[in-house]
């Protein structure tokens, strides 16, 4: 497949984005029945006549789901519809027990809002306002497993198996207005939007928003318009892009792919596309060139939703501090710049660092550990920071060991790796691997004496007052002790031994 150089895409085209995010609410029960929603239950055990779509069954709306979606709408600065209805979206598919989905059509519960996101822009950051078209409530489908064949994918499978545990879990769909004029920042904007939205929803406490478990799923719409035009291009919809990094990659790939097509005088097909985690590419799915025929009509089994202002204001008063306000507060508390805060947010480290600081760790140290070694490990593995197996409490413990001089930074990084590798608690690892700083003076003195014998010329330089030359000796001692010595202590012992003043 031809891809156009990203830099050149921007000179010739303006990307236009649209994002549809599905969030599974964390209500105890499903949206229309009282079945539990716990993840990982045995197949077809969280089911009842209603969520199996058995003849005669009826839906009843979960009040908590309505409250949750209104909270999301309020947090996204949306209007809350004074009167709206659920609607049936009719299409046949084996993962949908009734062969229609109860959703919303032209009367979403929340509409017309916005979300501000920060994206890195050179050495600075830009604030971009993303318009929110609508936020509506619907039900999730069952889960298909494709069997037979080789790939485990739908094509080439001999048959499929359906588990309806997920069917009827409340889903909130959040659809942006079109996002124009983001230029080369488009991939970053898409990623930052999803990250910010995820933080906002997690902060509301209405969803676990775990992309890896599918409780937050993202569809990415991308089109290009020629730089001199204002005519929207044909868009593609890349489905189920399920990590922040993938959102960015999917946008970048589609921009490059579409630009290559347009440059070659071909047209972009209106279709859904699949995202491939392994190489960041997309491949064609279902054509959307023919209008879909979902035969929406108001759901006769459910009555309208008409929240009064008293209820809405009650829910508004229950909203927690917004992520924006929280960032501002923590930026002040930690005394860091906007740019530094952006690095924290984009790494997905805000809550982790906050939790670490709350355990008594100095803010700059907490940032150092999370944005340094731990972020590097996450990047190497291509996963989110929060998926790395180390807790704020463990990081705080390691930092405490450094503060008391029991570990130095290098050893601390080693302990971090070992904790993540599942080798035990920081204390246990220090014990087991004998990583504690060597503070036994006689052992250090032996090493110092060896170094002095090995490097007499360095000793003369120091005795001539060139104190900076001591680095070579200290380095040799550090090497001899396997990095376990406290460098400051070595320096002091060395100078004492040589009878040279440190100042």
């Amino acid at each position: 497949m031809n891809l156009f150089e990203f830099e050149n895409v921007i000179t010739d085209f303006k990307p236009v984005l649209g994002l549809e995010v599905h969030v599974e609410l964390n209500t105890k029960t499903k949206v229309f029945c009282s079945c539990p929603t716990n993840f990982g239950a045995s197949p077809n055990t969280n089911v009842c006549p209603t969520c199996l779509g058995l003849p005669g069954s009826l839906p009843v709306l979960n009040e908590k789901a309505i409250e949750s979606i209104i909270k999301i709408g309020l947090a996204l600065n949306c209007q809350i519809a004074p009167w709206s209805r659920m609607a049936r979206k009719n299409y046949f598919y084996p993962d949908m027990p009734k062969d229609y989905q109860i959703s919303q059509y032209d009367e979403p519960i929340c509409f017309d809002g916005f979300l501000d996101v920060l994206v890195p822009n050179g050495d600075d950051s830009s604030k971009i306002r993303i318009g929110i078209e609508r936020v509506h409530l619907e039900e999730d489908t069952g889960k298909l497993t494709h069997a037979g064949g080789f790939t485990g994918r739908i094509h080439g499978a001999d048959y499929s198996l359906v588990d309806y545990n997920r069917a009827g879990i409340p889903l909130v769909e959040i659809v942006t207005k079109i996002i124009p004029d983001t230029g080369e920042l488009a991939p970053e904007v898409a990623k930052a939007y999803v990250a910010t939205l995820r933080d906002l929803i997690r902060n509301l406490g209405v969803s676990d928003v775990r992309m890896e478990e599918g409780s937050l799923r993202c569809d990415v719409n991308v089109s290009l318009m020629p730089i001199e035009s204002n005519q929207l291009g044909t868009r593609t919809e890349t489905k189920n892009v399920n990590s922040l990094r993938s959102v960015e990659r999917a946008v970048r790939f589609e921009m490059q792919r579409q630009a290559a097509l347009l440059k070659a005088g071909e047209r972009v097909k209106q279709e859904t596309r699949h995202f491939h985690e392994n190489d960041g590419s997309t491949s064609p799915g279902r054509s959307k060139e023919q209008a879909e025929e979902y035969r929406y009509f108001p759901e006769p089994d459910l009555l309208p939703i008409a929240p009064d202002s008293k209820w809405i204001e009650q829910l508004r008063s229950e909203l927690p501090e917004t992520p924006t306000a929280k960032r501002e507060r923590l930026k002040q508390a930690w005394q860091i710049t906007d740019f530094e805060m952006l690095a924290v947010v984009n790494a997905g480290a805000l809550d982790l660092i906050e939790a670490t600081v709350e355990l008594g760790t100095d803010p700059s140290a907490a940032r150092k550990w999370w944005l340094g070694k731990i972020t590097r490990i996450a990047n190497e593995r291509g996963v989110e920071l929060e998926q790395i197996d180390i807790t704020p409490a463990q990081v705080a413990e390691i930092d405490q060991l450094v503060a008391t001089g029991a570990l130095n930074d290098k050893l601390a990084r080693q302990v971090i790796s070992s904790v993540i590798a599942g080798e035990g608690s920081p204390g246990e690892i220090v014990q087991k691997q004998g990583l504690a700083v060597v503070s036994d003076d006689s052992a250090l003195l032996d090493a110092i004496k060896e170094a002095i014998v090995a490097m007499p010329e360095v000793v003369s330089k120091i005795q001539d007052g060139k104190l900076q030359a001591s680095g070579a000796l200290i380095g040799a001692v550090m090497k001899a002790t396997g990095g376990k010595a406290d460098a400051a202590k070595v320096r002091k012992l060395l100078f004492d031994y040589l009878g040279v003043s440190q100042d």
Partner: protein
Amino acid sequence: MTELTRMTAVDLAAGIKKKEFSAVDVAKAHFDQIAAVDKKLNAFLFIDEDGAMAQAANVDKKLASGEFLGPLAGVPVAVKDIFTQKDIPTTCGSRILENWRPPYDSTVVSRMKNADMVLLGKVNMDEFAMGSSTETSAYGPTTNPWDTSRIPGGSSGGSSAAVAGFLAPLAVGTDTGGSIRQPAAVTGTVGVKPTYGGISRYGIVALASSLDQAGPFARTVLDAALLHQAIAGYDPLDSTSINQPIPDFVAAAKHKDIAGMKLGIVKEFAGEGYQAGVLNRFNEAVAILRNLGAEIVELSCPSFTYALAAYYLIQPSECSSNLARFDGMRYGLRVDDGDSSVEQVMAATRAAGFGPEVKRRIIIGTYALSSGYYDAYYGSAQKVRRLIADDFNAAFSQVDALISPTSPITAFKIGEKLNDPMAMYLNDICTIPVNLAGVGGMSVPIGLADEDNLPAGMQIMAPVMCDDRMYRVAGALESALVSSWGGLLLDKAPRL
């Protein structure tokens, strides 16, 4: 003593309580009657003799131990095959659900069980309640006990035939456009379509969700009131169930005094297509009501002329969606040659599992909801529905209840209208506006038409949650008619 099968529910319950006979005796008598005559009627699709005899024995046991029992304890009831009953086949008269045994009870069934009633089994119906004759059932037509060459009405024709044929003193049915009232009218029984939301729809296989409503069949107004009282009331499992106290139907049925009540005759329910003998009986009944002290006024509900058209858009539209789930994936029939895709299996299953009337309506509904036609068809029909509700409101601001013939004609011959859908649909011309507006409607026997000596019914309509008014009017009318006839109209029916 009267044969047990010819007694009213009230008398059966009283006899059981007084231990004049046992609930087991009553159940046994009904199973004997079913065994003797149901081959002529084909009312029952499934006879739950074991379950029913156990329920009856349990009633006798409770009675022996002095336990307090409700007013219908031990009384048998026939259940339209549209209500789910745990572990009992529920087919909706369709091949596509052949042998399906639901894992749960509908609310109506569980309330009848809680009332210690004896559920005899499941009775026939038009396939998925689509029809006015019970001929579209995949399990063969049910016949009319008055004349077994004729239809028992529909879609609840198994319920009406069971009650009229003395196979059960009571039955439950459902009514989406007249499916309780029309079968009641053509079999000389009492049938009630309560206010929409008056009885839970939970566990009723949906035809058109915004129109469907369950209700009782009985031989007398009081029996109907007792069954209605037992199954009515708020159910948290049905969002469209009304959370208000239910009126006292039994007291209203016993009231018998209608002096001063204002009853309206809707001008639009007359004219071409109404059988003369039906209109004669209707006019005589109106005269009786006037004699009983009711004030009769004529009024107009112009939008009712459009009700049939609106109904045959709304009902197929909702049904096209409600019946989508019958796709052969989770329960019921699956037609699979082992080599087909899921799409082909679904289409083949639905082709084989649904009869022609069901297919017709699904296709009309699919068409009416599709994007290019939605506004012209479904959207316009919903506006007509609003006009009809407005007309009812205006009428009920002038009168306490409305009256009309229930069905414009008496029972027709089996096969006569089966291939003429529009002629079939006209049977429900008087009953359909009631469902569209969600108000209550009831049919009571008013005599035999002159032409064919077959039963005709009067429809009584009352405002939302005022179903007790229908019972008051019907109770008074029935009382006057029964004394003029010297017994129930059904006593005139030929013995099977």
